[in-house]
Structure formats: structure tokens, C-alpha cells
């Protein structure tokens, strides 16, 4: 399985428990309605950026490759645009399944630094919990400290926004 290049492995027993708890939850139950038609992947604006598109994620989940899915970059590339679930003939809430997978992935420490979005979301939620509201510039600055190589391109934007009193 060449495409599963980015996963960490779990021991079989751990994998089993994980799988059971996933399929007992709301997201896991929804996975079972998928008929593998591929409408989701065909509608996804970022499928080409994913190591696994949404249809493949659902196929792997049903075939017992939960740990591999949890360690994939794809579950973090979903932008929650809802194109898939609006068109899915089975009404599978794909973005909610992505959320459930993200939670598990973090719980079991399977997300890698280069997936980046965990840091964006953590920075965001930390602000909500601490200050009640979120400031975009604070968010971008916090993210920049963790991922400095993404920053040079954003700096000129920040200056332009500052000049127009938008920060």
C-alpha cells in the first residue's frame, strides 16, 4: 500500500479497541451507509491534495484500516465545504466523519507536524477558551511561531492589512 506512506502503526489489540469504539459512535455508524459511488471524491475541491480521497477513506475504514486512516494527512485536508455530503446519494455526513477521525487521531497521537491544521485548530480553540473570542492576527502569529517557514509569504499580506487598519 504505497499510498499509506505517512502512518504510524498500532499494535493489533489497540487497533481492535479503537475500531470498536469508532464504529459504535455516530460517525462510525454513518460509514456503513456508503455505497462507494465516489461522488464525494469527485466533488471534493481538495481531493487532489489528499493521499486518500474521501471515498477511499470510507473504504479503508470499512476494511479495518482505521489506524492508517488516522495517521493520514487527508483527514486534515478536508475544508468542511460540504460539497460531498450535499451530493452523497446516501446522505453520509463525510465532514462529520472527518471530525470524528481528527479527534481520534489526536487522542492517539497519530497526527504529524506537517499536517499543520492541528496547530491551527488548537490555536483557535485555545483562544476561544481563554478569551471567549478569536483574533485573526493573534491566530496567524501563533501559527507562525510553530511553522515559521510558512510565514514569509504571509508577512507582506499582514503589512498591507495593517496599513488598511484591518489588523
Amino acid at each position: 500500500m504505497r499510498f499509506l506512506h505517512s502512518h504510524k502503526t498500532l499494535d493489533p489489540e489497540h487497533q481492535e479497541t479503537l475500531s470498536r469504539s469508532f464504529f459504535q459512535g455516530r460517525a462510525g455508524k454513518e460509514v456503513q451507509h456508503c455505497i462507494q459511488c465516489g461522488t464525494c471524491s469527485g466533488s471534493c475541491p481538495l481531493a487532489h491534495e489528499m493521499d486518500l480521497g474521501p471515498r477511499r477513506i470510507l473504504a479503508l475504514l470499512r476494511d479495518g484500516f482505521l489506524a492508517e486512516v488516522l495517521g493520514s494527512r487527508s483527514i486534515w485536508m478536508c475544508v468542511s465545504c460540504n460539497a460531498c455530503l450535499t451530493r452523497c446519494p446516501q446522505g453520509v455526513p463525510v465532514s462529520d466523519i472527518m471530525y470524528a477521525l481528527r479527534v481520534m487521531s489526536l487522542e492517539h497521537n497519530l497526527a504529524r507536524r506537517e499536517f499543520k491544521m492541528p496547530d491551527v485548530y488548537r490555536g483557535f480553540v485555545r483562544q476561544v477558551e481563554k478569551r471567549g473570542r478569536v483574533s485573526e492576527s493573534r491566530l496567524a502569529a501563533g501559527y507562525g511561531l510553530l511553522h515559521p517557514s510558512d510565514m514569509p509569504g504571509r508577512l507582506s499580506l499582514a503589512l498591507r492589512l495593517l496599513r488598511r487598519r484591518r489588523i
Partner: protein
Amino acid sequence: MTMSDGFYFYPGCSYETAAGYKESVDAVCSRLDIRLEELPDWNCCGSTAGFSLQGDYGVYHPALVMARASQAGAKELVTGCNGCFNTLRKTRKLLLQDQDLYAGTWRKILQEGGPDSAPQLPVRHLLQVLSSRGQMHKSSLSPDMSGLRVAAYYGCLFSRPWTDVDDPEHPQMLDRFIEGLGFTPVNYSLKTACCGAAHALGFRQSTEALVQRIILAMQDKGAHLAAVICPLCQLNLESAQLSLGLPRLPVLFFTQVAGLALGVPRKELGLDKLLIAPEKI
């Protein structure tokens, strides 16, 4: 729109710093005799970050927003952000379909010292509110705007998956609004294509490619400007253009566009805050 009508306005975190959104909403609402009253002491809805880290328990923060609104006596919340709109509506849907989640969320709000009021209520987009006043535009219009071709951009979460708001794949509300103001709406195919949302932070090249397709589609159909209904869409559509090296297309909030048609002085519409100035208008 006052609290006597049963509405509160939920601005969300991006509203204040968005390029002239607040300015133009204030100016247009005052011309149309709509009084927007801000929900007191509101908190962030948590957006997709809340759901990404907490799954269904991400409903807590949006539920708290709605509990505050219920306690203040509102029958409805109105917001001008697609992200807030979707998060609040999604939360309401999850709570109404799962009694345990509903009861548990209410309990948690109480434990944290929050209000003892229903943590859900109907939510509308500001576009829906202004659109329902459609008729009054024509009478108060001043300049002739028909020479300006405007591309309505809805983004993802206004119509998806909310089939009750507008057609999820081919929404029309913003097009009709623009038309009602005297502009010529542009028919193009990417009105609900994704702008990349928060992924612009970590995956800029990927999201800029999404914006490039959208802007090119608009320009291909002869658009002079784009009208948007969400602060994050506005920021992404506008900022990506700076590095893409395309002919630039100004991206205005729908309320700025409305203000131009209503003859509101440009200063009052916050147009100077745009990164791409609408020079030809």
C-alpha cells in the same frame, strides 16, 4: 431589525476587522431603517476548529451563543458570516436530533455559569434579512448601475447543506439582490466553489489555486467586481489575487455593493480598506 422584532445580530470574530463590512452594514441598515442590535456578551462559535478537536462536543460554544440569545429574549439570531451561520445551524440540528447531547450541553453550560435558557434558536444570514426588503431598493436607488457586471459569490456554507435557505448547488438569492439594486449579475459556474477557508494559513498554494479558478471564471464572464457574503471568503478571494499575478478583480461585501447603489458616500462604505481598490466604479 430591533429586539422588538425578536432578532439579535451575532457579528462573529471576523466582522470588525473585515474590509468595510461593519461600516457598510451600518450605513445600509440606517438607510433602510433597519436597526441591528448586537447580541450582548457574545462568544466565538468555535467554527470548524471546535468540531475538529471535539467532534460533536464542538457544539458547546455555538450552543452557548444561542443560550445567551434565548436568555436575552431573542426569537432568532442573524449573522453575516457563512462560518458562524453554518456552525450555529449545524449545532442546532445536532442538538435537536440527539436528546442526550441537548441535555448534556445545557447542563454543561449551567455548570460553567452560563444562562439557563434553550441553547438553540433559528439562525438567519444577513443576506436573507436584506433580501426580504428587496422591494425597497428600487425606490431609493440613485445612480444607474446597470453597466456594472457583478459576480455573486456564495462560498460553501451559505447554501450547503441547507436546502431550506436556497438551492444548495445553484443559489440565486445574492444574484436577485444584486439585480434588485440595478446591477447586472454575472452568470458563472463557481458561485459555491470553496475559497479554501482556514487552510489558507497552512496550505496557501493549494487554496490560492482554488481562488484562481474562481476569479478566472468571474473574469471570463466579464465581471467588474465580485460581491461576497462572508469575511473569510472576502479575505481569501482578495489576498490570493495579490500573489497570483492575474488582472485584479475587486471583492466587495454585498452591503458595500448595496451602499453604492443606494448612493451612500464611498467613505462611509469602508472601501478604502479593500486591498484591491474598486477604481472603475
